[in-house]
């Protein structure tokens, strides 16, 4: 009798867990949404400066990073399919692929920012202060938005690493994987934000 009561005492609500995650993601959407609104207002105010400053960005790197992030999203989705089918090793392989792709994204981002810094383009740089006002605003938004996005990628990599460990330890398994689903939701949202950042900055010129 007491064993039965104990078995029922473990509360589990996968839908509730996903709802909680979505509510958090909604606040993330509004956080970036505010920045998107700021961008669109500033672009309508300084169309020529945004066009000119956008030409400074390397569209090839932007597009490459888009493909890297889209693929990393795919492998996260596939790792969930694998765990649903009880294929732990495959799930771990897909998660590892996502981690590698996430690191690739950051490496490309770092190269790109390094080139900008080299050209005297970084927040509060003396060279930046000599540029037209609209271009200063463009680079301000560029560093804020891609920087905040990059921070999310770093956090996402930490979360996915933890998921990989949990799958390896068997804590995430075929009939208990809502943690992995929620980690995936976070990673996909980071992907969606980048989907918007690509045309706003890299294809603006």
């Amino acid at each position, binding site marked *: 009798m007491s064993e039965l009561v104990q078995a029922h005492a473990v509360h589990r609500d996968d839908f509730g867990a*996903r709802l909680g995650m979505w509510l958090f993601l909604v606040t993330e959407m*509004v956080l970036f949404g505010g920045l998107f609104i700021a961008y*669109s207002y500033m672009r309508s105010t300084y169309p020529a400066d945004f066009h000119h400053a956008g030409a400074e960005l390397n569209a090839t790197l932007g597009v490459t990073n888009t493909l890297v992030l*889209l693929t990393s999203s795919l492998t996260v989705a596939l790792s969930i*399919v694998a765990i649903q089918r009880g294929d732990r090793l495959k799930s771990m392989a897909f998660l590892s692929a996502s981690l590698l792709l996430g690191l690739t994204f950051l490496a490309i981002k770092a190269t790109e920012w390094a080139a900008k810094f080299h050209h005297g383009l970084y927040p509060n740089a003396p060279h930046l202060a000599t540029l037209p006002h609209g271009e200063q605003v463009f680079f301000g938004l560029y560093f804020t938005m891609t920087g905040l996005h990059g921070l999310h990628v770093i956090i996402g990599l930490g979360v996915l690493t933890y998921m990989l460990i949990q799958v390896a330890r068997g804590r995430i398994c075929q009939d208990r994987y809502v943690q992995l689903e929620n980690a995936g939701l976070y990673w*996909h949202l980071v992907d969606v934000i980048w*989907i918007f950042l690509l*045309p706003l900055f890299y*294809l603006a010129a």
Partner: protein
Amino acid sequence: MSESALTSSAHDDGSVAHPGYGTFVKVWLALVILTGLLVLMSHFGQGSAVWGLLLITPVKAWLVFYFFMHLKYEGPLLKVVVLVTLGTMLIFFALLFSDVAFR
């Protein structure tokens, strides 16, 4: 891939059908093609680039939300949560630009 697109599993409420590997690979392929289209449109001048941004980007975001983020397979509550958020942001946009337009 030989497996069927949908396999059922006794997950939380028992009746949920899970999509297979193939579904996600197809969605990824659509996303890659749309990205190519977006880049192509940006080469035909500023006007075309803006149309690409306004038309293709939301479709890409929808694909990720609907398939990768499993909204397709969720009940109405989560869909409503997302739609209310997007609607709120759209109202913010509209209010801002109605102000900007009449300065």
